[in-house]
């Protein structure tokens, strides 16, 4: 597979073939196929319970697939996820947990410091730089539970970046973020996309229209054409995508150039 990718220019960083997954006999993902090129910014939309979070979990090796194959940078998930930065939903967090912002971000260095190794000065430098990049440096000593949703999201992004990833996975990055902060976070993601491939699962259709490069719609099955257009097929799968899509009449852009100017 990797060879095909190389032959035609940009390489595939994620490849999913014939993936089935579920819980206790209930199928959540059915024959999902996806090829993501390096440098892409993929937005996956779909209804609640459509399998978006399960899909991310399978890609990260947190949930075993029933069938099918997932490759990340040509490797199996447990190898490949070393190159993936993961940004979970901020809502799933215990506000009482005693931890400071700095220590949350430094957790992203765990993959670089195995058991019985201490964090190094290099780790601290990476953490400091990333806290500045996401605009959270002044908050480094604050308890994580005291932050607003948008601030926590930025800390999670910094933590994921501390992994020094080639790919970034984001699960509903704007679920509990106030509107003015949203633009801020999207601008950050767009800047990051200059060097990192991004796969984002979201409800936020506004974001889909103005920030991502390609769109997919996931509701058990995945409809994805590596383009930015929200196709009639996606809409016909109907129940698949939320109604506001039709109501607001998103500006349908023409196909985004595949692979973004061959990087």
């Amino acid at each position, binding site marked *: 597979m990797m060879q095909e990718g190389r032959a035609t220019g940009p390489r595939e960083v994620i490849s999913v073939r014939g993936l089935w997954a579920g819980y206790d006999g209930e199928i959540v993902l059915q024959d999902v196929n996806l090829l993501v090129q390096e440098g892409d910014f993929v937005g996956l939309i779909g209804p609640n319970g459509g399998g978006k979070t399960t899909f991310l979990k399978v890609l990260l090796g947190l949930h075993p697939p029933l069938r099918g194959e997932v490759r990340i940078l040509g490797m199996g998930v447990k190898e490949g996820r070393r190159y993936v930065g993961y940004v979970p939903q901020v809502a799933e967090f215990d506000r009482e947990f*005693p*931890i400071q912002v700095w220590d949350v971000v430094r957790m992203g260095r765990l993959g670089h410091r195995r058991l019985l190794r201490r964090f190094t000065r290099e780790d601290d430098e990476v953490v400091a730089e990333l806290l500045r990049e996401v605009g959270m440096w002044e908050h480094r000593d604050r308890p994580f539970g005291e932050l607003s949703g948008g601030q926590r999201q930025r800390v999670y992004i910094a933590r994921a970046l501390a992994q020094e990833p080639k790919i970034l996975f984001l699960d509903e990055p704007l679920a509990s973020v106030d509107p003015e902060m949203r633009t801020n976070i999207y601008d950050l993601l767009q800047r990051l996309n200059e060097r990192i491939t991004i796969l984002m699962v979201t409800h936020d259709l506004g974001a889909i229209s103005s920030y991502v490069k390609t769109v997919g719609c996931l509701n058990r099955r995945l409809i994805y054409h590596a383009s930015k257009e929200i196709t009639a097929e996606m809409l016909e799968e109907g129940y698949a995508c939320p109604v506001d899509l039709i109501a607001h009449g998103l500006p349908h852009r023409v196909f985004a150039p595949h692979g973004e100017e061959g990087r």
Partner: protein
Amino acid sequence: MMEALQYEFMRNALLAGFLVSIACGVIGALVVVNRIVFISGGIAHAAYGGIGLGYYFGFNPVWGAVAFSIASALGMGAVQRRTRQRADTLIGVMWAVGMALGIVLLDLTPGYKADLMSYLFGSILTVPREELLLMLGLDLAIVAVVALFYKEFLAISFDEAFAEVENVPVEALWMALLCLIALTVVVMMRVVGLILVIALLTIPAAIAGQFARDLKRMMALGSGLGVLFTTLGLWASYAFNLTSGATIILVAAAGFAVATALRRVLSR
């Protein structure tokens, strides 16, 4: 209190309280932030099965408690990690079976069982010197393991999925944590008794959690509070001739009430 210090048993008791407090501060913090109080209670009570084994086969019941509480920690841990439903029911069953096994084995053991109650309700005043050494050894082991794997324990407690993605050996560390809880139970058994272990494991840590900014400080503050509560409780039990373990717990509970009220005032 000062005149009490001339007795060796009183000095030993204070030392025992100190040793217990270290273990319960460090491990208690992990128990509280991970919300595994129930499973910890199960491990503590099941340890009684080991006491029964010790009496029945005629070896030191403390070693029986060590073996049995570690075995039940691993069993309960496996149940909690592997079964999707009703893990708490199964843990409750193992909790009760461990205790019942201990009681039956003691029934089957002939002769007078002098210090039996001390395992259940604690008797800090009769802790022998060699047991203090054992407690010290267990304490050192607990602190060493937590210190060596601190960054990983912090990670699995804060965000297990993220730790897994970073290829931290989540499962192994989780089991290790439960074994540390088992060892802590054994350290604490002589001071407050198996039945009240859970209170001393959670109360100082819960108070510390209200004030500490990070997990390390929560552990340190919890240990300090443990020393305060065991010392005050010991003094009160000496002064008013009360059961030491229960008195220590009541002092700790009073501390919890005061701290909670204080927190409310401070956050206003």
